[in-house]
């Protein structure tokens, strides 16, 4: 076996699909957030793999560092929202929060 670009892209596709499944099937809001993190990591693997095999520079790595920073910001805001949700509704299930429905 010669490890190349397609192997990394396949791992990334698997991670992305798993994250998508988690986002759609989890009821716990923190579980949904974990799915989002998996998807962001999949995109990051693609950035770094293309940077190594195709671009031969560090631009892809810089982009993935930006993605990591944005993921940190997103996680902080999302977890604050989850805690506020728990305080107001007593639950972290995404489908118990439907005040706007009425």
């Amino acid at each position, binding site marked *: 076996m010669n490890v190349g670009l397609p192997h990394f892209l396949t791992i990334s596709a698997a991670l992305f699909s798993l994250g998508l499944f988690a986002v759609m099937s989890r009821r716990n809001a923190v579980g949904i957030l974990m799915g989002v*993190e998996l998807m962001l*990591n999949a995109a990051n693997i693609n950035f770094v793999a293309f940077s190594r095999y195709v671009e031969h520079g560090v631009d892809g790595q810089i982009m993935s560092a930006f993605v990591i920073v*944005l993921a940190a910001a997103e996680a902080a805001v999302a977890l604050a929202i989850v805690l506020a949700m728990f305080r107001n509704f007593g639950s972290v299930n995404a489908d118990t929060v439907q005040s706007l429905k009425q």
Partner: protein
Amino acid sequence: MTADLIFVILALLTVVPAVWVVFSPNIVHAGFALLFTLLGVSGLYAYLGADFVAVTQVMVYVGGILVLVLFTVMMTRVPPSGKRRHGLDRYVPAAILALGVFGLLYKAITSVQWAASISPAQPTTAEIGTKLMTDYIFPFEYVSLVLLAAMVGAAILIRERREDRYTAEDIPETVDPDREVTS
């Protein structure tokens, strides 16, 4: 040969706990499985010669985001209710979409002849630092602003706001139109 073995180990370390993250009914177990997935992804970065990104991944994801996620999980534990709905209506569309996306991506990956040539591994940190201060100076400053705004926003969201909370005496008495005016 050894490199291939390391790659396989890293790939398994990434994907197998990710499956556990998705399917575990216990959210705490899912959080700890996410730890192994993130470490595996960091190992893949190191395998790809991206040393700076690998260390950043460990520091920010494992040291920051994952701890935050686990704290939130621990603080929002609710005792599981007796009835567990096994929502097939929820799993079937998700499985169809996820498998469809994976199939499409895999088809695209295998059908393209990648003109890939590997570049020699060399330390990247100095070059990344130089580029961040020259070519990417505007995105670099901008992302720091975004991070600051997100932190302030999270702090405001999480703040206890007593004056906003409705209590029984806050609710104004409803005026009953049929009530006789006595005074």
